[in-house]
């Protein structure tokens, strides 16, 4: 069984006693990758949360054109993810490949600064940010998995996802605080966002190290192409599980939209709902990862997915409007905490070290495309039969997907 080596020079850094356990169990590389993600997410959420509605309106794209562009960007992002995963596996330079993605995102902020009032320039900058995001995810997740011991993979992804969520929650708050101080301070905001992105790029380049995966004698690289990965039974099962669950997932945007209508919140309160979910995700991701390592990742993943059902049900809750809002944000955050990083850990435990980039890219792409399909399907269903019936259909679908997932994952022996 493969166990990664700890990068040298770890224990030089003094830490408060409480953190030392967590630091030791996942290693500094994971924390630094988390720091990179935190800074990058602060930077990107600062911008996306305030790009005002009227910019979208004034872009002059029809809803169909907007959907097309959005779909193209998702497709491009998926292709890039596969390419960067392969590149990272072949070159063994996960850090540099991921850093290239972070650099593209940082550069997109600079483009935003110079795009000024030019709306195509603005759209191009946003697209460049997404391209960078697509490029960096697979090598980064592979590096996280290579940096952690096999028995603490869940904790490692938990720590990373927690820091990532912290950035996603902080970004909008910072942006709104800044705009409250400086009216129309968008240029300042874009400038600050660029600086934060540079700090993120600095974190990965200066602090993160590549981890040497030992080369198994037989592996000449050809044995772990995408086709070979899919042929592996247990990894294929995991792909099916991720796809099935994602296909029955109601996007959080839809749930918030329903709750927003019911509570008659202004459109402007919308970003705050994502902040709330990110906060719950931030608090719960690391404990959920450790729990998964101890009690079994499969079980934690299934339990986390199950939490989506009460989250769907919140929109039918009686009582004052803030009750379902809080419940929905908490349940969604808890569900993400118990599924997203845990799924990556499950995959990493099945994949040979030299195919982690490709394998994780494939998993994320399958889940992403399924989620895109689910969003289109749910939108159409909502329009056709109303929100309540659409949620019931998706809830039933999720229950079925869960039963299937339990069967597919069943023969898995304990992973630790």
């Amino acid at each position, binding site marked *: 069984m493969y166990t990664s080596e700890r990068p040298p020079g770890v224990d*030089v850094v003094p830490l408060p006693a409480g953190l030392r356990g967590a630091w030791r169990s996942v290693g500094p590389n994971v924390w630094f990758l988390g720091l990179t993600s935190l800074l990058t997410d602060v930077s990107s959420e600062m911008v996306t949360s305030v790009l005002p509605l009227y910019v979208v309106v004034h872009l002059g794209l029809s809803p169909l054109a907007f959907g097309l562009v959005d779909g193209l960007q998702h497709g491009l992002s998926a292709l890039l993810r596969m390419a960067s995963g392969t590149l990272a596996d072949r070159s063994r330079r996960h850090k540099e490949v991921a850093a290239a993605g972070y650099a593209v995102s940082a550069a997109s902020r600079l483009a935003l600064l110079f795009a000024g009032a030019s709306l195509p320039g603005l759209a191009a900058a946003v697209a460049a940010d997404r391209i960078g995001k697509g490029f960096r995810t697979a090598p980064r997740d592979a590096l996280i998995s290579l940096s952690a011991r096999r028995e603490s993979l869940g904790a490692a992804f938990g720590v990373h996802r927690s820091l990532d969520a912290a950035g996603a929650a902080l970004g909008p708050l910072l942006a709104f605080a800044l705009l409250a101080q400086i009216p129309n301070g*968008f240029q300042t905001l874009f400038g*600050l966002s660029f600086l934060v992105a540079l700090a993120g790029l600095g974190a990965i380049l*200066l602090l993160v190290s590549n981890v040497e995966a030992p080369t198994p004698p037989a592996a000449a690289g050809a044995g772990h192409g995408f086709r070979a990965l899919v042929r592996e039974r247990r990894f294929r099962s995991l792909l099916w599980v991720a796809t099935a669950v994602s296909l029955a997932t109601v996007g959080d*945007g839809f749930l918030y939209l329903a709750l927003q209508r019911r509570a008659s919140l202004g*459109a402007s309160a919308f970003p705050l709902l994502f902040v709330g979910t990110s906060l719950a995700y931030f608090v719960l991701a690391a404990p959920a990862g450790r729990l998964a390592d101890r009690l079994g990742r499969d079980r934690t993943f299934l339990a986390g997915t199950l939490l989506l059902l009460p989250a769907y049900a919140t929109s039918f809750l009686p009582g004052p409007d803030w009750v379902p809002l809080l419940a929905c944000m908490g349940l969604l955050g808890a569900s993400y905490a118990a599924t997203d990083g845990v799924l990556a850990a499950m995959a990493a435990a099945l994949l040979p070290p030299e195919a982690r980039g490709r394998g994780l890219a494939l998993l994320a792409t399958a889940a992403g495309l399924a989620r895109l399909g689910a969003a289109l399907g749910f939108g159409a269903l909502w329009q056709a039969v109303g929100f309540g019936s659409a949620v019931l259909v998706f809830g039933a679908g999720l229950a079925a997907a869960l039963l299937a997932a339990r069967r597919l994952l069943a023969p898995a022996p304990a992973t630790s």
Partner: protein
Amino acid sequence: MIRRLAAFATLCLLLAGIGALLLQQSAPGGRPADPEGIVPVTGAPALARIRSAPHLVFRSTLQREGYGQVALARLDAPEERFATGLACDRVDFAAGRGICLGADRGVITTYTARIFDADFVPGPEIPLTGPPSRARMSPDGRLAAFTVFESGHAYDAPRFSTRTTLVDAETSQPIAHLEEFEVTRDGAPVHAPDFNFWGVTFADGDRFYATLGTADRIHLVEGSVRQRRMRILREGVECPSLSPDGRRIAYKSRRLDGGRLVWGLRVLDLASGAETALDGETRSVDDQVAWLDADHVMYGLPEDRVPATGGSDVYVMEAQPGAPPRLLLAQASSPARPRAAAAR
């Protein structure tokens, strides 16, 4: 590792320093005197002096005290600017009353509309459901109309829509949303779920024109507030603005330029149906224009100064083909010309 940590800490300190500098630079009031030569004036005598002559009411984007406020300036001495203390994103003023669409920017940004009086004292707040876009008073000051962008009319998140509301300016009470009015084409009622209305312009205390958008087409409608009815007049007229004599409508006309939506200004003669392109202005104008007088239109454009300040400028031009635009007010948007013929 220690050396790398030190390098990272140095980088962060450096970036924080640049950030602090950036913040200091862009804080309101932190800029040197503006190059436009605008002189802020204060006090009741200054206001009386401006109001004693033909003047404009507008939103000032001057980067100093008074940023984002309703301001006044005389036409014959536009460099003197009086800021009223009333902060609005969009403003209109007629016959001693105005409408102010504003934003309270916080963690949750909320938007409100308020009717204000001749002393710029605002009445009760009317909550808005989205960011403000257009605002108009009727010439007699009795009616107001505003348009906001709104999400949530449609089921899928990337789709956005507008909502237009009519307000009794004497009581600050909303009368109706245009979405509730009956629409006819050639006498027959028409309706579609994707009807969107925006950009009202009033002829008097009842009759108005507006834009109806449906199925990717733009229509000019004429309506009556009392009859709660609108009829479709013609296609392609967006954000109409009725001339003071009620004979012509200036509007923005959309077209694709290299895959990008741009707007040119045009004028429609209501009696003859003849259209004229105001092609002296070659930039894209995304604004509901206002009439300065019977022959001139004015409109806001995002600034082209370097470095950018996030402001906009108001231009004026004769409503004739080929007439060149000229800068009327620097660092201003949402211009209105209070009519001398006050109805009250």
